């Protein structure tokens, strides 16, 4: 079946530093969506991409459908960025398949 491999599963950053999360897809996806789970457990939309890149503040995401991957870059990490980040790939139909999440901890 369709699968999404998300890495790393956990990430620790010091304030002001940055890193990248990555999702590899085993099949071609039409689009990818990135979410952050907030402290109340709700999923917050970060990006939706059908192709190319999008940037919002300190976050930037890229999606390459042909190469079957997407990335989420975080720069100048802040304490409030801590949380669990998920990617989700949308197949040609109505289904969306999720990665297993990356637990990010930003420390002083």
């Amino acid at each position: 079946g369709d699968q999404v491999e998300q890495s790393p599963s956990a990430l620790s950053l010091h304030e002001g530093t940055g890193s990248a999360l990555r999702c590899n897809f085993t099949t071609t996806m039409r689009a990818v969506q990135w979410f952050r789970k907030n402290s109340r457990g709700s999923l917050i939309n970060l990006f939706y991409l059908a192709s190319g890149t999008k940037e919002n503040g300190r976050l930037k995401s890229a999606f390459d459908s042909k190469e079957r991957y997407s990335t989420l870059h975080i720069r100048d990490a802040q304490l409030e960025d801590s949380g669990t980040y998920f990617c989700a790939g949308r197949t040609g139909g109505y289904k969306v398949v999720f990665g297993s999440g990356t637990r990010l901890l930003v420390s002083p």
Partner: protein
Amino acid sequence: GGIITQTPKFLIGQEGQKLTLKCQQNFNHDTMYWYRQDSGKGLRLIYYSITENDLQKGDLSEGYDASREKKSSFSLTVTSAQKNEMAVFLCASRSVGGLDAEQFFGPGTRLTVL
């Protein structure tokens, strides 16, 4: 803008009990989804519905029923709660048409079975 509401926010049940979770959206979206999230795992699709009165099984449909009574609401029933089960159930909706159609999520219902 719109909003997705899920009720109840917390649900405590007994083993073997039938439990119903409700979801409402005012986006006027066509497609609605129910996902289950277990600790340390990604979301898994239980049921989805393309339009009113439509139901499609996801990867995790066994043990669940769903009902799309009208366009704005989508209910999920746990047919027989499993002892010590703990999970968060997330409802989502998405408009249909075009490639650019992101999903929006509700706040979730946290289930605990005693």
